[in-house]
């Protein structure tokens, strides 16, 4: 298999010991993910537990976001499936959803009860906006981290930076629906990459 992007020491990777271990790991990371789980998932799965390389992580995330459904949920399905088959997929997904859902329903119930006590609602609202600001920062910091493997990308890093900026501009400034960006830019990029890989494979073949 051709090396598309330099792999970071695959041999030193770890893996979950059991379905229960998988469940606990996903529950733990979901419960730390305020305002979105991607930042924590990257930190926990790649850096702390070392179950995936950053390269694996971006690849799975790419697949997860083209498919319908929440991308972190699709991501947990794929990771669970990779280690323990369909049972792993369901367990990882359950871990991602069960605990935070229980907590959130309790919160919603409590908020309904205390909303009218003094300044409670106001303080809670301010705290939520503080959390939102942190969540934004966490995602941007994670993007900067995930961008590192791009320097060895088959398209070359300048092209990658241009493509990422283009995708960003289409979403953030032009407000295009995601489906268009994926279909338009995504398919174009994939076709270009395919042509490049093909040419490389055939030149390697003729040299041998």
């Amino acid at each position, binding site marked *: 298999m051709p090396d598309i992007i330099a792999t970071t020491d695959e041999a030193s990777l770890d893996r979950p010991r059991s379905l229960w271990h998988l469940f606990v790991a996903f529950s733990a990371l979901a419960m730390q993910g305020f305002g979105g789980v991607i930042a924590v998932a990257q930190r926990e799965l790649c850096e702390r537990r070392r179950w995936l390389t950053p390269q694996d992580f971006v690849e799975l995330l790419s697949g997860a976001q083209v498919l319908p459904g929440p991308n972190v949920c699709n991501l947990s399905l794929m990771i669970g499936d990779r280690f323990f088959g369909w049972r792993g997929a369901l367990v990882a997904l359950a871990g991602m959803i069960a605990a935070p859902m229980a907590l959130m329903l309790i919160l919603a119930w409590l908020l309904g009860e205390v909303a009218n006590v003094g300044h409670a609602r106001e303080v809670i609202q301010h705290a939520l906006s503080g959390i*939102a600001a942190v969540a934004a920062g966490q995602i941007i910091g*994670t993007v900067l981290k995930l961008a590192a493997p791009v320097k060895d990308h088959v398209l070359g890093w300048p092209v990658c930076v241009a493509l990422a900026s283009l995708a*960003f501009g289409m979403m953030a400034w032009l407000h295009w629906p995601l489906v268009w960006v994926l279909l338009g830019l995504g398919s174009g990029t994939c076709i270009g990459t395919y042509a490049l890989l093909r040419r490389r494979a055939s030149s390697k073949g003729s040299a041998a």
Partner: protein
Amino acid sequence: MTPLMWSPDIWWTLFGHFLALSLMSIGGAITLVPDMHRRLVTDAGLLNDTDFTSAIALAQAAPGPNVLFVALMGWYSGGLGGAVISMVGIMLPSTTLALAVSRWVSTRRHWLSVQAFQAGMIPVTIGLLLATGWHLTPPIQTQPKALLLSAVIALLVWRTKASLIWLVAAGAMLGGLGLV
């Protein structure tokens, strides 16, 4: 709404709506918010505007995947049963499809087209993720201090191993005290 209300009619309606929306949720269920508002608030009258908006705000701030706002909408419409059945509705179709497709792909990892897809999508994914972060950043005109907080957090996450959960706690504290 009482948490343990028994209302199978509402549950069926919720289940039907979320089941129908599931396969359209490319980019996450959050992209379907306008459609959900039309179906649940305007047409079916299952919950009011305030509950609809606070479901989204609370799910954004609380831990866990953002899709949990769907559970909250179910909760405000039909109690605990509504919350569970709404989540099952939104997850069942997309989960089945995602698992089937990812299995199909993983047995064909040696195909050049699969490799081209995986490598080619990387820069696009990075750009899209950056747009998500951008979308969440506070506006500079009204909340310059919150924007500064976002920038500092981005640097800390990128360059250090600072614990993410403590960063969130710090954000909640600064916000609660009215400092950002």
